[in-house]
């Protein structure tokens, strides 16, 4: 599975990186790691706007592991 590590990056980098990966991957699963609630919300909103679904969000320490899926 492709992993995007956007921890420590400020807006709009986490969303930009997610959308770039979505463009490359087309379908399947992508895991995105972020470390703020804001980035989590923004990444989820962006993924959903591209027709991807949020499969799972796991909180580990201060990080969020978001798994998105399509197809």
């Amino acid at each position: 599975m492709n992993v995007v590590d956007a921890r420590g990056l400020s807006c709009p980098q986490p969303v930009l990186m997610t959308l770039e990966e979505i463009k490359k991957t087309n379908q399947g699963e992508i895991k995105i790691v972020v470390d703020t609630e804001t980035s989590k919300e923004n990444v989820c909103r962006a993924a959903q706007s591209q027709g991807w679904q949020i499969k799972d969000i796991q909180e580990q320490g201060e990080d969020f592991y978001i798994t998105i899926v399509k197809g």
Partner: protein
Amino acid sequence: MQGMKNFFASKWGIISVGAVIGILAPLLQKWGNPGNMGVCVACFERDIAGALGLHRAAVVQYMRPEIIGFVLGSLVAAYLFGEFRSRAGSAPIVRFILGVFAMIGALVFLGCPWRAMLRLSAGDWNALFGIAGLIVGIWIGTIFFRLGYNLGRSQKTYSSVGWLLPLVMVGFLVLMFIFPQVQGEPKSGVLFYSIKGPGAMHAPVLISLLVGLGIGFLAQRSRFCTMGAFRDLILFKQTHLFFGICALLLAAFITNFILGQFHPGFAHQPVAHTMELWNFLGMVLAGLAFALAGGCPGRQLFLAGEGDGDAAVFVLGMIVGAAFAHNFGLASSPKGIGPHGAAAVVIGLLVCLFIGFTMRKKSA
């Protein structure tokens, strides 16, 4: 609290926060704040720089409690919802310089993006040039994002790092209580106060502080950002944050209309000038600096409140930028731009382009 958390991240959440700001800002004007300046992050940070004596422009010196409230309200919200994350170390010197020039650009126009919206909502059509400039500046910023511009990662750090700017704000508040304004006096203890001009116009201290705390709380929850609104629209065609500023504009227009504060026209608008080109270019500079720094001046205060030490450096850059703006004759007045305002805008744009072009990572 979970339901509330989800609500503010929703479309209606951001719309309601924009509307609340749009109602409260004209009310603050009614209660004493300067014309079309119920809330202005740039102007109010400039007034704080004046209150501290960092510049000595006699008409703009006041320790604005709204700014203090923004940071502390955000801090409270961040702690209540478990979102306080102390972090720092993402190109702080760059953020400081961007803060300096963002402030200079905003003071050539005479307002931050919030005030640009408030000026428009009260019929000051000069704001149209400022908002057009803001959009163009942010658009230039999005080109840099597409080219790989990135200030690098911040690091998690001690909680106390994130506490420093909120503590500075507490310090400012304490100073204000120890040295309160004395009617007709330009100084009280170590603090400077304006006897006339915009700095002398303010709502009662406790009302300003309470409104600031409320807006800080709500904006932290909703991630309200005027720069992000246009950036996301241009970069991702996302309308989420944009709905927020539309709600602010509409609510402020209705409130101004009801309060008799709507006066359409170009000439004789409060704390505004009619030099279209510099209204436009000032905000091109501000918009570009906000975009490169990742948030409008309000958002930077809210981020600083939730522990972002880099946003705190941007805020300090803005306060220092305000001091330069008035000491060097860069800031505008109702008569027009300052003697060196035009040069400062050109230099600021060159600095932002230098930052944008040189701080790029090739995509992996």
